[in-house]
C-alpha cells in the first residue's frame, strides 16, 4: 500500500527566538523532549512519594523530618497520618500511571521518533501537538497542586472509586478540593491524550515518505500507531467519567451515588446513582490503559532487539504486529476482571475471565517471538539491550502472576492484596519503565547528540534489575499470606508477622530509588559532557539513524527520502539502511 502523500512536506519555517523554539514549540522533536522531561520530573516525584510510603510501612513510628516541612498537617512532627499515607499512595499511582507510564513511552519517544521513522518533517498537526503537550502540563500542574491546597491531596486511590471519591468532605479528610483537582487534572490529561492520539494516527497514515509502506514501518511506529487507536477509544470514556465524578461532587448530581447513604451520621442528599457504574466506566478505560502503557514498550523493545541481536525478529514484522493488534483489540473486552468481587453478577465474572485468559495468548506469542529471536543471534550487550532483556524477564514474571488473578476462584483470595501490587508493577510498571530506559539509552544520542556513559548505564541496569525483583517478587509472597494493599499500617494478627518482610521490601525499594540517581546523573552529565554521538552509533537501519544527531529542524536537511526495505535488515555484521537501494540482506 502506497502512502497517500509520496513525500513529506515542510509545514513551517524554523522558529526564531527562545520562546518559540524551546517553550511554545511546534517542532515534534522539542515536544518529544518536553514530554520526556515532564515524565522524568514526574517519575522522580512519584518515586519520592513511594519512598515516604515505604519508610512508613516498614517503620510506622518513623519521623520523616522533610515530610513535616512539606506537609505540616499530613505529617505533624514528621509522623505520617493514615490519611496522608493514602494521599501519597493516590498521588503516586496517579502521577506514575498517567504522567510517567502513559506519557513517556508514547508521547515522549513517539513524538520525537515517529515522524522521523516514517520520513516526515513533523507531525501532521504541529499546533495540535504543541497544544497536547501544554494541556498535559496543565493536568500535571493541577495534580501537583493538590499537595498545596489546605485539605491535601485526595486519598481514594488512582482508581477513585465512588462513592468515597464522590461524596465530598463528609467521607473524611482528603475528599475536598484535592479530589476535585484530581478529577479535573485527569479530565485535562484525557483531552491531551485524545489530541495526541489523533496526531499519531494521521501522521502514520498520511505522512509516510516514498516507499514507506505499512509493512516497512519500524515496529516502534507500529506500536505507537496501534496504541493511538486504543488511546482514542479509552480516553474518550475516561474523560466523561471524570466530568461526571466532578459533577457529582460539585453539581449535586448522583451518577455514582445511590440513595440512602448515611456517612458520618448524616443522610446524603443523593439518589439513583450506581457505584458499580463508576467501576465499569473506569475499568473500561482502565484495562486498555495498562495496554496503552505496555504496547509502546512492546514496540520499543521490538525495535531495539534486532539492532543488538543482528537479525530480524522471528516471524518478521507480521507476527509481532498482529500480536500487538490482537492485544489492543482484546484489551477492550476484559475490564470486568478487575471487578470479580465488586458485586457485579458472578456470571459476568465467568464471562470476563475467558477473554482475560485469551489476551494472554498474543502476549505469550510476543514473549516467544522475543525469546526465540535470541536463538542463533550474535548478541551485543549495550545498555539498551540489557534493559530490553530485563523487560522480557520482568514481563514473563508479571504475566505468570496474571494467571492467578485471571481465574475468579483464585482471584477472590488475591484481589486487593499485595500480590496484585507486585503483579501490576511487574507487568505495566517496571516492564514499561525498563522499556522506557531501553529507549532512553538507545535514542539519547539521537535526541541530544551525545553518547551516555556505558559503565554507569550497566551499573544502573544491574542494580535496578536485581532490586526490582527484591521489591515486587516479595510483594507476591506477602500477597499469598493475605497482606491487604492500601493499608497504612499492619495491625491485624495475620499481617503483623509480615512486618520484617515489609521492611525488606522497604530497604530494597529505597535502594532501587537510589540507583535511579545514577541514571539521572548519567543523563544530565552526558547531555553536556558526553562524547559527541555519531549519526548511527548502534549500526541500526531505520530512518532516525539516517540523519544527523540531533536531526536538523526538518529532520533530513531537505533530503528526499525513499525507502527500499523493511526495518530489520540485519545479518550479523552486515546491515542495510531502509533508504539504501542495496540488495536486502535479511529479506525484509
Amino acid at each position: 500500500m502506497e502512502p497517500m502523500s509520496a513525500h513529506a512536506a515542510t509545514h513551517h519555517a524554523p522558529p526564531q527566538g527562545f520562546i518559540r523554539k524551546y517553550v511554545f514549540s511546534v517542532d515534534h522533536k522539542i515536544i518529544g523532549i518536553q514530554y520526556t522531561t515532564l515524565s522524568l520530573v514526574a517519575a522522580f516525584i512519584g518515586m519520592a512519594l513511594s519512598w515516604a510510603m515505604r519508610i512508613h510501612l516498614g517503620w510506622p513510628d518513623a519521623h520523616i523530618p522533610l515530610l513535616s516541612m512539606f506537609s505540616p498537617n499530613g505529617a505533624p512532627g514528621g509522623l505520617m497520618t493514615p490519611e496522608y499515607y493514602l494521599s501519597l499512595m493516590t498521588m503516586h499511582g496517579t502521577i506514575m500511571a498517567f504522567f510517567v507510564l502513559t506519557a513517556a513511552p508514547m508521547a515522549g519517544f513517539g513524538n520525537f521518533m515517529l515522524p522521523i521513522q516514517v520520513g516526515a518533517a513533523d507531525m501532521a498537526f504541529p499546533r495540535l501537538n504543541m497544544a497536547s503537550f501544554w494541556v498535559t502540563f496543565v493536568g500535571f500542574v493541577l495534580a501537583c497542586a493538590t499537595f498545596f491546597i489546605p485539605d491535601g491531596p485526595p486519598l481514594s486511590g488512582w482508581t477513585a472509586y465512588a462513592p468515597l471519591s464522590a461524596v465530598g468532605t463528609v467521607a473524611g479528610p482528603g475528599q475536598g478540593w484535592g479530589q476535585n483537582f484530581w478529577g479535573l487534572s485527569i479530565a485535562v490529561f484525557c483531552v491531551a491524550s485524545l489530541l495526541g492520539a489523533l496526531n499519531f494516527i494521521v501522521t502514520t497514515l498520511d505522512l509516510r515518505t516514498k516507499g514507506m509502506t505499512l509493512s516497512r514501518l519500524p515496529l516502534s511506529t507500529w506500536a505507537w500507531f496501534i496504541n493511538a487507536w486504543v488511546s482514542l477509544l479509552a480516553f474518550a470514556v475516561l474523560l466523561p467519567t471524570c466530568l461526571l465524578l466532578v459533577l457529582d461532587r460539585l453539581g449535586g448530581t448522583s451518577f455514582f451515588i445511590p440513595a440512602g447513604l448515611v456517612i458520618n451520621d448524616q443522610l446524603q442528599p443523593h439518589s439513583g446513582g450506581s457505584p458499580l457504574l463508576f467501576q465499569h466506566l473506569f475499568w473500561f478505560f482502565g484495562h486498555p490503559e495498562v495496554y496503552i502503557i505496555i504496547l509502546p514498550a512492546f514496540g520499543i523493545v521490538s525495535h531495539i532487539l534486532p539492532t543488538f541481536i543482528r537479525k530480524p525478529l522471528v516471524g518478521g514484522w507480521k507476527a509481532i504486529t498482529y500480536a500487538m493488534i490482537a492485544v489492543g483489540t482484546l484489551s477492550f473486552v476484559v475490564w470486568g476482571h478487575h471487578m470479580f468481587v465488586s458485586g457485579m453478577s458472578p456470571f459476568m465474572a465467568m464471562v470476563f475471565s475467558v477473554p482475560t485468559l485469551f489476551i494472554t495468548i498474543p502476549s505469550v506469542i510476543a514473549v516467544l517471538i522475543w525469546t526465540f529471536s535470541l536463538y542463533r543471534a550474535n548478541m551485543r550487550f549495550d545498555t539498551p539491550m540489557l534493559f530490553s532483556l530485563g523487560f522480557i524477564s520482568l514481563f514473563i514474571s508479571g504475566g505468570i502472576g496474571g494467571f492467578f488473578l485471571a481465574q475468579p476462584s483464585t482471584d477472590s483470595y488475591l484481589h486487593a492484596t499485595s500480590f496484585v501490587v507486585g503483579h501490576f508493577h511487574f507487568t505495566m510498571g517496571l516492564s514499561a519503565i525498563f522499556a522506557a530506559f531501553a529507549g532512553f539509552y538507545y535514542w539519547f544520542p539521537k535526541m541530544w547528540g551525545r553518547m551516555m556513559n556505558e559503565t554507569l548505564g550497566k551499573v544502573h541496569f544491574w542494580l535496578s534489575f536485581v532490586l526490582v525483583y527484591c521489591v515486587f517478587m516479595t510483594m507476591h509472597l506477602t500477597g499469598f499470606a493475605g497482606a491487604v494493599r492500601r493499608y497504612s499500617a499492619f495491625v491485624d494478627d495475620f499481617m503483623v508477622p509480615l512486618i520484617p518482610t515489609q521492611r525488606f521490601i522497604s530497604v530494597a525499594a529505597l535502594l532501587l530509588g537510589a540507583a535511579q540517581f545514577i541514571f539521572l546523573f548519567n543523563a544530565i552529565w552526558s547531555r553536556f559532557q558526553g562524547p559527541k554521538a555519531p549519526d548511527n552509533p548502534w549500526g541500526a537501519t531505520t530512518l532516525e539513524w539516517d540523519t544527523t544527531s540531533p536531526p536538523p529542524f526538518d529532520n533530513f536537511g531537505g533530503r528526499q527520502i525513499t525507502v527500499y526495505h523493511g526495518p530489520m535488515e540485519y545479518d550479523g555484521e552486515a546491515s542495510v539502511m531502509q533508504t539504501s537501494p542495496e540488495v536486502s540482506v535479511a529479506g525484509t
Partner: protein
Amino acid sequence: MGLALLVIIWLITFISTYFFVAKVWWLPHAASAAAPWIDHQFALTYVLMGTVFVAAQCGLGWLVWKHRDGASSKPAGYSHGNATLEIVWTALTAALFVGLNLMGSHVWASERFAPATTGAVPVEVTGMQFAWYFRYPGPDGKYGRTDLKLMDPSAGNEAAIGLDTSDPAAKDDVVTGTMYLPVQREVDLTLRAVDVIHSFFVPALRFKQDAVPGLAIHMHFTPTEIGDYEIACAELCGLGHYKMHGVVHVVSQEDFDKWLAAREGEK
C-alpha cells in the same frame, strides 16, 4: 556480560521459586468447605505456572549466554516463522488457560450462582466507616425493618444499623460487632454497606466480597473448623481502612445457640 545475565536470571528464578515452594509465606490455614478446592486450584496453577516461569526464565538466561556476540563464528541465523509451530503453541496455550479456568469455575459457582440451602444460618453483614456489624434475625427467621433516620453508629449494636424496634419482626433481631458462626453449618450471608464500598475479607475462609452501598449481595459458605478468624476490609474506604477489622468466632452449634440466647436475653 552474557554469563552475568545467565547467572543473575537463574539466581532470581531459583531463589523466587524456593520461597514459593518452601511456602515461607503461604495461604493461612484453611477453615471453610470451599477452601480446599480453592487451595487445590492455587496449587494446580502454581505448579503449572511455576514450571512455565522456571522454563521461560532459564531459557532466556541460557539463550542470552549461548548466543552472546563472539560465542560462535557462525553468522546470525534467522527464520521468517514456522506456521505449524506457531499454530501448535497458540493452541496449547489456549487449551491450557481455558482448561485451567474451567477447572476452577465450579468453586466460584458453588458459593454464588444458587441461593443457600434451606436451614442455612442467616447473617447480615453491614460495613460502615470503620466497623462491621452482624445481624441475626432471631427465632422468627425474619430481618426486621431498618430506618436510616434511626441510625446511630456511635451507640453501637442495634442502633448502629438503625433497627426499627416498632417492627414486630425486629424485636428478636440481634446486632453485634463480633461475628459468631456455628461450625459445619452453611451461612447465608447478606452483605450491605451504608456509606462507601467496603470488602469483607476472611483469609482463613478464603472469602472476599465487596459490600456496596445500594446493593444487598448474597453469598454462602460453610466454616468447617472451630476457631477465631480475622476479618479485614479489602476495599479502600477512608483513613481508617487499615484498622477496619473484626473477628469471626466459629463455635460449636451448642455454644452458638447459647451465645445467641444470651444476646437475646440482654435486649
